[in-house]
């Protein structure tokens, strides 16, 4: 645009005294009249649950919106899962927005009522005992029950077991399960059948997390009430809305397999922190008839994937077909060149869709001479962010960089200098040193679109953020 056009382009030609369209005096609207969609937009920006809690207490209208926002965030906090979250242990610490926690410990000792929502005391079909539509079950064994203390103030709920003085958890789900959108199982044992029947009661579930869940126990203690002897052959997946699955540390692999069997076709985000991560490909097409099975594409909706170990079958047969945008491969130490080779091959197959790539691989030996040359021609047109441990040979890194034609941010994790000189760190000096290093190693030259290099002392996403340096590209002189 030309400078002449920079004249003021807003011109008020008449003032407010002109003919009024509304004869009545302008009534100023109050905040209570703010439309729901706008209030939602504002409250959605709050990232502290305490603030959202305050909003719940303002009035009925705000409370209803705050609850909706809370429910949305429960699942939404999952959605922006960032491949650079990296670390193994992270998953355990990731409890999303306020989740009602029930522990079997409480069952034995009697609940401290004050900690639990009042609504729980009088649960019935119409009321929702889960204020944020999320639930975390901790340490439950095969005997699933709630003690009667839950009910003392209220009326006797349906399913209340008069002789035994408790409500079975399965009954609670039967009555109120449709309210839940998020379920977290922590530190307990379940039988796949049990899991299936629980999930079946929760048709609106969107996200599921399992951490430290073992396989065990008989399918519920009350067999006669239990619908299935076996998970039916031609079942439909129990929760059709479930799109986010996170399997944490030390979770039984048979359970994993079952969950994937049920949900693989609908998953958008899948994180697996448990190894070995096994995917039984052969079972998937069985659900459809024989003719279709040939064209069956497993994981066809998957966009975010975090996996721990390289697993050949998975890499070669499944994932290359799906539109993965965010990929995190956590592998720890690389011991064999073959591992690296298979990972590189795998990543190359996703080159068309990847937006964010995170490789947590520590390389302890010199492998830069073995770069497979034929791959130099595979480019990644969408990749914006790349995170990798900072112990790679610079030449190997440049091999990556030159193919990432749109890369904007490079993150180097586990930088030893930042890590070990934590106390006597002179930032200016270190920055200069890094700048020189990046110049020498030609990162800026190999990747023209690169704007920033971040150097991190720790693995990204660890509990407390460690020291990090951000170095921007210097403006060129010409």
């Amino acid at each position, binding site marked *: *645009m030309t400078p002449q*056009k920079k004249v*003021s*382009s*807003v*011109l*008020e*030609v*008449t*003032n*407010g*005294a*002109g*003919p*009024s*369209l*509304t004869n009545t005096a*302008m009534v*100023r*609207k*109050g*905040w*209570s009249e*703010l*439309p729901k969609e*706008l209030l939602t937009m*504002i*409250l959605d*920006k*709050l990232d*502290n*649950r*305490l*603030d959202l*809690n*305050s*909003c*719940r*207490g*303002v*009035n*009925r*209208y*705000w*409370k209803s919106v705050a609850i909706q926002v809370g429910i949305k965030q429960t699942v939404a906090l999952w*959605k*922006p899962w960032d491949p650079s979250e990296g670390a193994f242990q992270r998953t355990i610490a990731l*409890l999303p927005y*306020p*989740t*009602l*926690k029930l522990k079997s410990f409480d069952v034995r000792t009697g609940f401290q009522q*004050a*900690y*639990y*929502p*009042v*609504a729980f005391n009088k649960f019935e079909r119409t009321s929702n005992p889960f*204020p*944020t539509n999320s639930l975390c079950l901790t340490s439950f064994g095969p005997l699933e029950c709630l003690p009667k203390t839950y009910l003392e103030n209220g009326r006797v709920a349906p399913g209340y077991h008069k002789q035994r003085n408790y409500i079975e958890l399965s009954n609670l789900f039967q009555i109120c399960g449709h309210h839940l959108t998020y379920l977290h199982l922590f530190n307990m044992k379940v039988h796949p059948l049990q899991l299936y029947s629980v999930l079946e009661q929760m048709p609106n579930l969107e996200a599921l997390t399992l951490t430290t869940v073992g396989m065990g126990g008989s399918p519920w203690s009350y067999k006669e009430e239990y619908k299935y002897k076996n998970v039916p052959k031609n079942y439909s997946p129990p929760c059709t809305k479930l799109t986010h699955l996170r399997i944490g540390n030390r979770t039984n692999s048979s359970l994993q397999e079952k969950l994937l069997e049920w949900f693989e076709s609908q998953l958008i985000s899948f994180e697996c922190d448990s190894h070995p991560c096994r995917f039984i490909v052969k079972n998937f097409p069985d659900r459809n008839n024989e003719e279709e099975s040939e064209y069956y594409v497993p994981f066809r909706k998957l966009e975010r994937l975090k996996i721990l170990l390289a697993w050949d079958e998975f890499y070669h047969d499944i994932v290359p077909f799906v539109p993965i945008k965010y990929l995190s491969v956590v592998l720890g130490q690389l011991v064999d060149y073959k591992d690296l080779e298979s990972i590189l091959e795998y990543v190359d197959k996703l080159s068309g869709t990847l937006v964010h790539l995170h490789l947590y691989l520590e390389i302890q030996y010199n492998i830069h001479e073995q770069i497979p040359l034929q791959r130099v021609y595979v480019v990644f047109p969408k990749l914006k962010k790349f995170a990798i441990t900072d112990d790679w040979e610079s030449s190997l890194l440049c091999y990556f960089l030159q193919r990432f034609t749109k890369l904007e941010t490079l993150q180097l994790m586990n930088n030893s200098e930042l890590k070990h000189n934590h106390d006597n760190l002179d930032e200016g000096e270190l920055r200069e040193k890094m700048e020189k290093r990046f110049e020498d190693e030609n990162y800026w030259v190999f990747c023209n679109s690169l704007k920033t290099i971040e150097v991190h002392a720790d693995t990204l996403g660890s509990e407390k953020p460690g020291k990090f340096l951000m170095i921007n590209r210097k403006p060129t002189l010409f």
Partner: protein
Amino acid sequence: MALVRVISSDGAAFLVSQRLAKRSGKLKTEIETFRKSSDNSEAQPEIRIVTIRAEILRLVLQWLQQHQNDPVLPANQNEQDGRGDAEMGQSQWDRDFLAPMDLGIVMELILAANHLEVKGLLDITCKLVESKITGRTVDEIRTAFKLKSDFKGNEEEQTRLENRWCVEN
């Protein structure tokens, strides 16, 4: 320079360049409908905004003018990025622009920005409101936004109890 007349609810008329007006989604469609319905391509479009009064309209146009050279943010930016675009648009000028406003004006500005589909302005105003909520108690929020509690019976107490376990986690 092609102009467009934008008229507020209380009758004040603003002459705005079409290029500037088109940065508002609403005005853009209005201008386009006008073009289609009018035979004379030279005619100056006139748009009445019945829900926004002059004072607010002036502020919106002022903001648009200041930001006329910003890249237009795609509507679905939020989903792609998750965060960041709100901070991106927050300049010193914006802060000075918003500083003297009381919350009543901000509220009207939010409604106007929403009605006129000016995403950038909507973002910074919502952000401002969010900052007014952060760290406040229930009573402080009620006072700031002139809201009254309409809870009945023990509802308020119940909400407080429900909140308690959220904190315990």
